[in-house]
């Protein structure tokens, strides 16, 4: 990777690999993106959705203002963030 100058894409490659491996094992790669850290109570809401063996990631993104954005396997997403709602209002 260093030889080919792809070190900058290492993180992306790692994420794709994780998704690929999860899919291969019949599991999901789920990313919870929130403006603030999820509380235990909030995490519990998704307990039924998350199965054992799923690759779960939590990401803090203050740009979302509030709410949550859930990305499944890198392509499916449920966006309940305030940023998305505002964008929908003004688009």
């Amino acid at each position: 990777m260093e030889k080919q100058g792809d070190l900058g894409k290492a993180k992306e490659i790692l994420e794709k690999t994780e998704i690929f491996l999860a899919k291969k094992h019949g599991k999901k790669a789920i990313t919870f993106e929130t403006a603030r850290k999820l509380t235990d109570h909030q995490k519990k809401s998704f307990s039924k959705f998350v199965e054992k063996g799923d690759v779960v990631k939590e990401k803090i993104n203050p740009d979302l203002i509030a709410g949550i954005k859930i990305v499944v396997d890198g392509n499916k997403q449920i966006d309940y963030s305030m940023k998305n709602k505002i964008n929908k209002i003004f688009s």
Partner: protein
Amino acid sequence: MENELLSQLGINWGIFLSQAFNFAILLAVLTFFVYKPLIKVLDERSKKIKEGLDKAQEADARLKEVDEISKEKIKTAEHKSVEIIRLTSQKAKILEQDMMQKMEEKQRQIALETEKMAKKQKEDAEKQVLSNAVALVRDLIVKTVELSPKDIDDKLIKKAADEIQGLRLCQGLVRIFGSQRCGRKKACIRVYKTIGKARGLGQS
């Protein structure tokens, strides 16, 4: 008798003959040295005068000819000048019309451009106002959210969880009933809400 008469008149034949001879000599000398050169000079002079007169006549004729030519040329030049003036006037008129057309076209273009610019400025101003309003409302929402972020987070996260539950339920229904509605998220949510309410679940 005859001799007496001559002698009474004082004519002496000897003297008369000698005088006649002298006169003849004088006449011959004068003829040869004076009369002939004089006649020659006079002839030459008259010839020169005649030549001069002929030349003067010729010159006069030429002058007349030249005068006629010049008159003709002046006339032609006048015609030409009139024609040139007429053509120039026509050209000037055409040029004037052309310039007027161009000017009108340019005025139209300027008017169009001005109108376009004014429209663009208006649009830009509207966009700017809209953008400012959006930014203001956005800031207002952000500030409102920041007052109690936890409540809003909870509500939004609960909605997300409900939707996921609904989708999962829909997927189950698809498996059971073979419905094609699972691809439509809103339809799925409606199904979920209906069933959820019946089960006492999924309060939105």
